[in-house]
């Protein structure tokens, strides 16, 4: 308590801000490394010696450099010096790469990956065990050829630097040597209609007295519609140069060499970054603020609902009063707008899958390279939106599925060719909306699941007895059980007993489902189905035992009015003869201690059919109260994991209404409760 609450709050807030910005930088680094991987792969395929050159890679490496530099500055404000230290070493290596002093190849790219991974771990508060080795590797990279052409000490815009040819670099480096006269940047904005003539004349004039090292169109158009150019000129005193270009409105800037950086004596964090936040048109907002906003719209709804009730009462009392009728209309309109506001607020938390897909792509590319497998990852539907929390939690399961496919599914190039398949394997991540939910397919065109091997593995672990009959579909689903692995050896990529059970648990935790389809020899597809948002759902309001409950419409197959003749009971369990088959019944009222004693012997009257054909459950209720959109609010930690609950909501009268999760009941809760 010595620090005081205010101090602690401030520190927390600063730390959160740091994490926010750092995560964004790490995301960008992921994307950039993914691009480099692709370029490297292309270069290798194109028969080059494995070194992507040219402006494309330069631009990416420059971007990586800027990001690492920003991260270094950001983290310098935190207490730990490990991140800035590592970032600094990484910067040096990147600097050599971008100046051409060292070439980008697989080994160097790997080093970059490792460094970025280590930064990620450090940022999130973990300890990276091999930091010292990593830094030593990075520093070794920095020893290099002192003869290499170096304009890397010169302060230049990155796009300008990237545009210079080797020859131009050399010329500039010469000009910038002590006694070489120095170099200048001339910025021009020329009318679109006449720029080529103007430029030619200007360059002609300059070349009579000086050396025009390079012309760089910056591609930008200024507000007056003029095209912007940059000239690099050397060999002329500044005043003279200014006079020559003045007529065209050129602005002269002397080029300077950067002074050697001392660790700690850095430019202000973010100074190098010209990724202007304003350009993207978006805003980073803390999730807590969104939740707060959502809570406020919820409260507004509650207040409005109370208003509506009063208005109804008033209308009941004075049905002919036109003022009262008018108030009623206005109240209804208000409710409509509030619901719309609520939906929009929830919508703010929706985020496209893109960033996640990019991260996954990087991991897949790198793993494929390490495993010497030739694989393309195709992503579709990256613009599909999901609630941010969901996306955060989907990362690990999706990665596991992809690595699983890569490791177990994808065959070697030779095997594939022998099987008549294209040499390069293909992994596909496909996301799309379906029936108000989001479906993500993870598929590979590899060897598929060998059911006989699954069977053998199951028998060897005792899960199945020899000759025990089991359908192919059920056998396939054994894959999801813990401890079952058909991999003959431990794999570096995804480990033993691959952890598909963890994947399934994770997806279920998100109120989603996962299914598997596979054709031996052709490939495997996992289909994940998750809600778009965990928070706002259409729900059926029912009552049982004197209390109300909300059941998400997505879980409901049918409303049933139970015919007594079709109900039966074997003492502990009741069931119902539905046209699709026999369905177990579960009395909702039996779950709660209720004020009205509900006789268990009373005939069950209504039920809500949930689950899938062949695996259904009828939830018995006393009656239906209607359908509406509800905001599911989380319930406290100590209650969260109780079976059958998705959360709670407030229907407008300041009483909590439990929102059920029928899937949970189906999974085994039902057995206990039905017997209760």
């Amino acid at each position: 308590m010595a620090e005081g609450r205010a101090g602690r709050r401030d520190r927390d807030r600063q730390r959160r801000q740091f994490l926010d910005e750092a995560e964004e930088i790490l995301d960008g680094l992921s994307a950039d490394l993914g691009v480099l991987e692709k370029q490297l792969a292309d270069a290798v395929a194109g028969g080059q010696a494995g070194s992507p050159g040219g402006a494309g890679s330069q631009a990416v490496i420059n971007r990586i450099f800027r990001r690492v530099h920003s991260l270094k500055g950001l983290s310098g404000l935190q207490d730990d010096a490990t991140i800035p230290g590592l970032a600094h070493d990484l910067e040096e290596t990147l600097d050599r790469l971008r100046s051409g002093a060292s070439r980008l190849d697989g080994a160097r790219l790997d080093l970059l990956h490792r460094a970025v991974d280590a930064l990620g771990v450090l940022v999130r508060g973990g300890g990276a065990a091999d930091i010292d080795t990593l830094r030593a590797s990075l520093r070794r990279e920095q020893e290099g050829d002192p003869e290499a052409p170096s304009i890397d000490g010169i302060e230049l815009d990155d796009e300008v630097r990237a545009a210079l040819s080797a020859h131009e670099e050399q010329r500039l480096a010469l000009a910038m040597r002590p006694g070489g006269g120095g170099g200048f940047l001339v910025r021009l904005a020329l009318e679109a209609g006449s720029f080529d003539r103007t430029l030619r004349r200007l360059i002609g004039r300059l070349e009579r007295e000086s050396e025009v090292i390079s012309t760089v169109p910056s591609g930008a158009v200024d507000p007056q519609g003029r095209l912007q150019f940059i000239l690099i000129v050397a060999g002329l005193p500044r005043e003279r140069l200014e006079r020559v270009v003045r007529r065209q409105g050129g602005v002269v800037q002397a080029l300077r060499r950067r002074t050697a950086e001392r660790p700690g004596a850095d430019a202000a964090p973010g100074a190098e970054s010209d990724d202007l936040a304003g350009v993207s048109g978006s805003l980073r907002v803390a999730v807590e603020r969104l939740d707060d906003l959502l809570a406020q719209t919820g409260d507004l709804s509650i207040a409005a609902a109370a208003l509506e009730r009063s208005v109804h009462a008033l209308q009941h009392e004075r049905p002919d009063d036109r003022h009262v009728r008018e108030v009623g209309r206005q109240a209804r309109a208000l409710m409509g707008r509030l619901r719309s506001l609520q939906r929009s607020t929830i919508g703010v938390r929706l985020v496209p899958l893109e960033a996640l897909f990019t991260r996954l792509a990087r991991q897949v590319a790198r793993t494929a390279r390490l495993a010497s497998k030739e694989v393309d990852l195709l992503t579709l539907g990256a613009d599909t939106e999901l609630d941010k929390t969901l996306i955060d939690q989907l990362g690990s399961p999706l990665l596991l599925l992809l690595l699983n496919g890569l490791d177990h599914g994808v065959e070697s190039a030779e095997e594939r060719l022998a099987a008549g398949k294209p040499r390069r394997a293909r992994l596909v991540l496909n996301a799309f909306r379906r029936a108000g939910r989001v479906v993500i397919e993870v598929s590979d065109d590899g060897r598929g699941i060998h059911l006989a091997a699954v069977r053998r593995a199951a028998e060897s672990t005792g899960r199945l007895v020899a000759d025990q009959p089991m359908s192919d579909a059920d056998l396939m689903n054994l894959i999801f059980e813990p401890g079952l692995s058909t991999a003959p050896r431990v794999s570096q990529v995804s480990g033993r007993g691959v952890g598909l059970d963890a994947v399934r648990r994770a997806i279920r935790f998100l109120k989603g489902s996962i299914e598997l389809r596979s054709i031996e020899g052709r490939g495997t597809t996992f289909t994940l189905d998750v809600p778009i948002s965990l928070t706002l759902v259409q729900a059926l309001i029912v009552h049982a035992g004197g209390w109300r409950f909300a059941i998400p419409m997505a879980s409901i197959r049918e409303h049933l009015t139970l015919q007594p003749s079709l109900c039966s009971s074997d003492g502990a369990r009741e069931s119902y003869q539905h046209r699709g088959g026999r369905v177990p019944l579960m009395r909702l009222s039996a779950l709660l201690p209720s004020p009205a004693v509900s006789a268990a012997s009373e005939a069950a009257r209504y039920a809500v059919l949930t689950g899938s054909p062949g695996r259904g459950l009828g939830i018995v209720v006393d009656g239906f109260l209607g359908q509406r959109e509800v905001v599911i609010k989380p319930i406290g930690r100590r209650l969260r994991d109780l079976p059958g609950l998705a959360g709670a909501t407030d229907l407008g009268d300041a009483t909590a209404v439990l929102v059920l999760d029928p899937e949970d009941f189906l999974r085994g809760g039902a057995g206990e409760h039905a017997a209760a």
Partner: protein
Amino acid sequence: MSMRPPDEAGSSVVGAGGARPGGPERFLIFMLESQEYALPLDAVVEVAAYRRPTPVPGADAAVEGITPLRGRMLTVIDTRRRLGLVARRGGAPAKLIVVREAEELVGLVVDAVIRVAPVTDDDRSPIPASLGLPRSAAYRGMVSRDGRCLLLIDPEALLGGEQDLQAASGERA
């Protein structure tokens, strides 16, 4: 940072911070079955009106249910039950003391909230075993004043696991 006297109509919000620097710790005093108990003011967020919460299937016996408060769902705990006391008479007046637990809020049901009072270390004394208090591990000590005794509650122990509390008090679950 003052606390308005609790009124029947609604809730009153307690300011932040119980201990003034260098001073005695301040406690919120409440009543259960004509016995006075105290919670460190530090842990208290507000005092709210009591409304019957919605029961939650499968919850601990001490959890009365959940109720909405300021847009969030509050878990409501029956303090009597946690302390091993006689159950409340249905319909008897009650109040809710809202306390912080990790990042969440929890409501403790009490009969009435009395006042805020300071307690110095000198005032405090350990609870004698002869009192035979159930769930003794829930308490930090007591204060004898004006012939009455005030039982100081340890909020963490009170909110912790039911079995842990019973075990720590040497009782069988």
